[in-house]
């Protein structure tokens, strides 16, 4: 057990993956000497060389498109998209090529590509630096999408994603990069595509992923003080979803609140709400409530804390659910 920040967990996980398999390459803007703008690849070029940690030209479609070719050649490229808002120029290569080649080739061509995206707000950034595009990937068949919420998962999930023969969009909660956590480097906690009950409770089920897990855990602490017992589930995997733990929980609590930073319309909350209702219809005491970013383009950062779900909004939703 070592204590380290989430970002360092990723760095250590990347290092372990590169040591384990020399087909693993890192590619992205400024990932070399600079170690990435968030230093997630810090030190890797120094230790693995310029041919395994490749500073890419400033072209996201190029980054993903050449990775497809590298994967055709047997490599396992791990790509860094510098910020969430800059992934869109690569959208075509991701959804039409990366996602589909295995299907198109009837399994002959594998695309073991990991696309790392630091996502979400809360760091006071300028526009295009605080977006939550996970929905745009989760709706695409052929991609897998995951998000970690703590240092231990960061360390293990990035390795599992790299080991996966499927393409994985890896959403990193950038505002939690600096959060410390215990990392157990000796034993893999659980499979990549599994959700996890991170706090048990009885009165309502709160579902989150990535940066919002911490917010929800804090909300659960606050609720506990007022006598409300919240169960908190960290989804971890956004595509495929692993909702069995959610269904099991909601059948007990009768109430569900989904929390994410992405806007409400067609966010993950919509899908989760629809599925909970399909599977737990008679258990629900209230409709699933979504606590999300509003349906605005990401606002100027001075107002982002009001825009993003926070402890108060989660508790208010819990109250609404309980009062329904």
């Amino acid at each position, binding site marked *: 057990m070592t204590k380290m920040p989430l970002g360092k967990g990723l760095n250590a996980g990347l290092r372990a993956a590169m040591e384990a398999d020399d087909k693993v390459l890192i590619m992205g803007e400024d990932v070399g000497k600079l170690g990435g703008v968030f230093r997630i690849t810090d030190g890797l070029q120094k230790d693995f060389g310029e041919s395994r940690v490749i500073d890419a030209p400033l072209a996201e*479609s*190029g980054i993903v498109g*050449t990775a*497809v070719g590298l994967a*055709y050649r047997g490599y396992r490229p791990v790509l860094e998209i510098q910020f969430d808002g800059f992934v869109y120029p690569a959208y075509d290569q991701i959804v039409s*090529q990366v996602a589909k080649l295995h299907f*198109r080739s*009837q399994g002959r061509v594998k695309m073991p590509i990991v696309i790392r995206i630091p996502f979400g707000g809360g760091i006071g950034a300028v526009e295009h630096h605080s977006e939550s595009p996970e929905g745009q990937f989760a709706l695409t068949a052929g991609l897998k999408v995951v998000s970690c919420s703590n240092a231990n998962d960061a360390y293990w999930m990035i390795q599992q994603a790299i080991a996966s023969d*499927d393409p994985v969009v890896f959403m990193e909660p950038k505002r939690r990069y600096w959060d410390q956590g215990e990392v157990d480097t000796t034993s893999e906690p659980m499979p990549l595509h599994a959700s996890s009950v991170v706090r048990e409770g009885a009165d309502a089920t709160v579902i989150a992923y990535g940066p919002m897990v911490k917010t929800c855990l804090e909300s659960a602490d606050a609720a506990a003080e007022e006598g409300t017992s919240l169960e908190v589930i960290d989804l971890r995997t956004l595509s495929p979803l692993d909702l069995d733990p959610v269904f099991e929980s909601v059948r007990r609590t009768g109430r569900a609140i989904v929390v994410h930073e992405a806007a409400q319309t067609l966010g993950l909350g919509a899908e989760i709400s629809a599925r909970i209702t399909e599977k737990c219809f008679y258990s629900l005491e209230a409709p699933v409530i979504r606590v999300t970013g509003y349906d605005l383009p990401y606002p100027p950062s001075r107002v982002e804390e009001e825009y993003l779900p926070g402890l108060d909004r989660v508790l208010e939703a819990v109250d609404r659910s309980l009062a329904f």
Partner: protein
Amino acid sequence: MPDAYVADDPAGAFPLVQLLTPEGERVPHADFAYDGDDDSIRGLYRDLVLSRRIDFEAHALQRHGELGLWAPALGQEAAQIGSGRALRPQDFAFPTYREHGVALCRGVDPALLLGLFRGVELGGWDPAEQGFALYSIVIGAQTLHATGYAMGLTLDGEVGRNDPERDAAVIAYFGDGATSQGDVNEAFDWAAVFNAPVVFFCQNNQYAISASTDRNTRGPIAQRAGGFGFSGIRVDGNDVLACHAVTTAAMEKARNGEGPSLIEAYTYRMGAHTTSDDPSRYRDSAEVETWKLKDPIERVKRYLLLQGTPQSFFDDLDTEADELGKHLRETCKSLPDPDLAALFDHVYVDGSPELMEQKAQYVAYRDSLEPEGSES
């Protein structure tokens, strides 16, 4: 702005490399020569004829409702065979949706090309087996794949060993219209920056559906390469010898670790864009007639006849083409319709429980229909 800073008039800078005239006469060229003998030329001729036959049969199959669509390569056979035959087994080709002749050169069973157009599959061969990627429909996307693969060759040390039997390179096919796409230009940029062993082979067939080349690019396409810091060359795309010679040189250069090149094969799409297209809306039939005179196959035939190739060669080839035609017709009709249930298994390598649930639902639903409809 003073003229000195204006790009040179490029017309003069990019003369067409030609080694065989439309009349079937071989002409010398200062820099390029075809390196085979007449037997090799007969080999090329065979490929040209067979690839045209693929088109012919596929076209007929489409007209008979056996294919949903076909994208003919009619008129572009020399560009495809000339370049395709310049590849070595260790090389890798990234085609568009029209490289039927290249597929033939790579050893892909032409019948497999039909699956995509029949609507029974999305790619019917194993790219790794013949070094021939799946057909790619999204314009330009494959040029980045080619560049990435080429970067991989460099990383693997498969380049610049001075070992012709082992050194490898990549060829990326695309059209004149594709030169407008961001991806294609990013591929040029990456190839230059990484000095990647890739040859960009543009078949300028003068149309992107209805758009003539000047709608997609100003000046000759070959000149685009210079802007990215590598060399471009323009070749008579209806001259199989010139296409072969130029591609051989460019591939050699790439295999030697001397980086990318762009080849513009100036040719003409004699057919429609696809069987869904109606070219009468946007081009004169007179134009087509002019280009018939430059037919890429006729000129080789004339040359071979002038060289005294016996009639039996042509007759044998006709028989071979007929057999290929029969093979195509028979295989096409026997290509099985896909089983939707099986497709659920190809979305992921590692599967997904979620999807397996959907598959189960689908199968249950489908099975529930059978007793009632009792047709399927």
